[in-house]
């Protein structure tokens, strides 16, 4: 790194420009990652937070994709799943999107607020939501906030008045805050009464889920796999991931182009170093070290700036902006940036290896 460091210092302007590009792209990628994770949470947290390892869906019809909106499991299948070998617990959940309104508190003054919510209905006493009972619901904090109600208040859920037993958790499903309710209070729309949307399973390793699926006409997925059954999640996530991949590709290309031009420009100096005995390994280490230094500084600044912006979003917009500021959403994009940047810079290494030290004799500088 003897020459690399001195080059960085000497050609400050050029490297600062390139560093700024790396910084900005990193910032974009990190912000986009935070937003992607935030949106994903808003779509899926109610599912990922379920105390389960697998979800059972009804098998989709030929040529149809598996979806929460299409799945319907009859009570008999629900019961049979509970007795499958290796299944520790099988808790049916009936999911429905509907509207709820804060229709009045104990004092009788209704907030009148209404909001779109995701109702997760379970049999009273279900392990998934133990505090739920007939006419007693549990609201996620966001549901409580948008309906402007608190524990003890009443809300109207599909024509029925129910009491808010508790406000707990911040689960969301398909961008709607979750209300846990008893099956009797579930919206009757859509599913046949008594049917569940999915069964949340906890299993031991030995469970033969495929055989049970075959026998019962169901399709069992891990919780992570089941997220693809949330339509709004797959479409959003797909386009956001595509943007991220494009940004990564752009950064690799830009960095590759920069280092290629830079290396060609200093091929005369590379020839001199070779002529005085520098091995190719020495020169490659020098060149890659330079790229790594530039990338490390650029991504560090970009990540710092993005987390500052993320923290500001948190402070001023609260939960209104779906944005997750966590170590994985910060470090993963930075690591990928550095890695792809190095891949880009590696393209220029071909020039380093191909320079003929003989040219050092002729070139004047």
């Amino acid at each position: 790194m003897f020459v690399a460091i001195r080059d960085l210092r000497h050609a400050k302007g050029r490297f600062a420009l390139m560093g700024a590009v790396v910084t900005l792209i990193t910032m974009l990628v990190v912000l986009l990652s935070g937003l992607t994770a935030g949106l994903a949470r808003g779509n899926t947290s109610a599912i990922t937070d379920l105390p389960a390892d697998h979800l059972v869906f009804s098998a989709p019809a030929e040529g149809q994709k598996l979806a929460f909106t299409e799945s319907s499991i009859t009570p008999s299948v629900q019961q049979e799943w509970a007795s499958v070998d290796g299944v520790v617990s099988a808790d049916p959940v009936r999911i429905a999107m509907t509207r709820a309104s804060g229709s009045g508190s104990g004092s009788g003054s209704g907030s009148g607020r209404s909001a779109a919510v995701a109702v997760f209905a379970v049999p009273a006493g279900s392990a998934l939501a133990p505090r739920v009972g007939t006419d007693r619901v549990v609201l996620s904090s966001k549901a409580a906030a948008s309906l402007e109600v608190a524990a003890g208040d009443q809300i109207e859920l599909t024509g029925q008045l129910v009491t808010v037993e508790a406000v707990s958790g911040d689960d969301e499903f398909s961008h709607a805050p979750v209300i846990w309710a008893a099956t009797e209070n579930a919206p009757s729309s859509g599913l046949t009464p008594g049917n569940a949307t999915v069964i949340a399973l906890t299993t031991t390793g030995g469970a033969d889920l495929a055989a049970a699926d075959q026998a019962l006409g169901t399709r069992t997925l891990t919780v992570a796999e089941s997220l693809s059954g949330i339509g709004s999640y797959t479409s959003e996530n797909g386009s956001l991931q595509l943007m991220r991949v494009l940004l990564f590709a752009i950064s690799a290309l830009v960095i590759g182009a920069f280092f290629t031009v830079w290396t060609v420009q200093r091929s005369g100096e590379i020839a001199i170093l070779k002529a005085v005995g520098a091995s190719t390994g020495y020169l490659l280490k020098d060149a890659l070290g330079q790229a790594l230094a530039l990338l490390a500084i650029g991504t560090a600044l970009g990540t710092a700036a993005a987390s500052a912006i993320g923290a500001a979003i948190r402070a001023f917009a609260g939960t209104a902006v779906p944005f997750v500021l966590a170590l994985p959403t910060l470090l993963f994009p930075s690591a990928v940036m550095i890695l792809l940047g190095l891949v880009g810079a590696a393209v220029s290494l071909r020039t380093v290896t191909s320079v003929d030290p003989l040219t050092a004799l002729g070139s004047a500088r």
Partner: protein
Amino acid sequence: MTLHIDDVTLTYPDGEQRLTALDHVSLTAEPGTLTAIVGPSGSGKSSLLAVAATLITPDSGRVLLNGRDLAQLSRTETAKARREGIGIVFQTSNLLASLTALDQLLVIAHIAGRDIDAARIQAMDLLGAVGLVPQADKRPSQLSGGQRQRVTIARGLMNQPSLLLVDEPTSALDRHRGEAVLDLLRELTTDRNLTTVMVTHDHEHLATADAVIELTDGRIATLADGDAVEPGVVAIASTR
């Protein structure tokens, strides 16, 4: 180390044909001697140095350094040979733009994996020998042409070579500096038992040389063997 160039022929691609830069050239240079190479422009002087410096592999012939044939070495091995035993002073001062005069010398030590702090003393000594201590922290763009050339000479000595190849070291220097540089080369050659081969245009330099070789069109026109030859004789011989 004895340099022994044995029947070397070197051609460069020249359109469809090949241009013969060296045509069956042989010479021997012993440790502690200064060999001068003279000849008109384009006669192959720099090419001969490039062959001796392992920077180019000849079409045929052998380049023996202490009995080892450099023409048979791989790229990695020639780099090692240059790093460890060969000092090269280019015809045009070939310096790295981002390095100070001192760093131009230190990078040689760094390439060889030597301790930089220990090398600093040696580098300052060499800069002192070429009269450049005040310019140690200057970059090439801040140095005059002659100063750059002197840095190049000091750099060529930095790896404590046993074979020193110098291409017109005084072309950008005034008479006084030129003589000083020549005296330095002469002194180093004797003191450190260097095998020095120097290309020059300046016939006054021939007086200090132990042997003079004249190249014309890639062929050796006159081979004057050092010990027996008086400077005057060489001058006559080289002009024929």
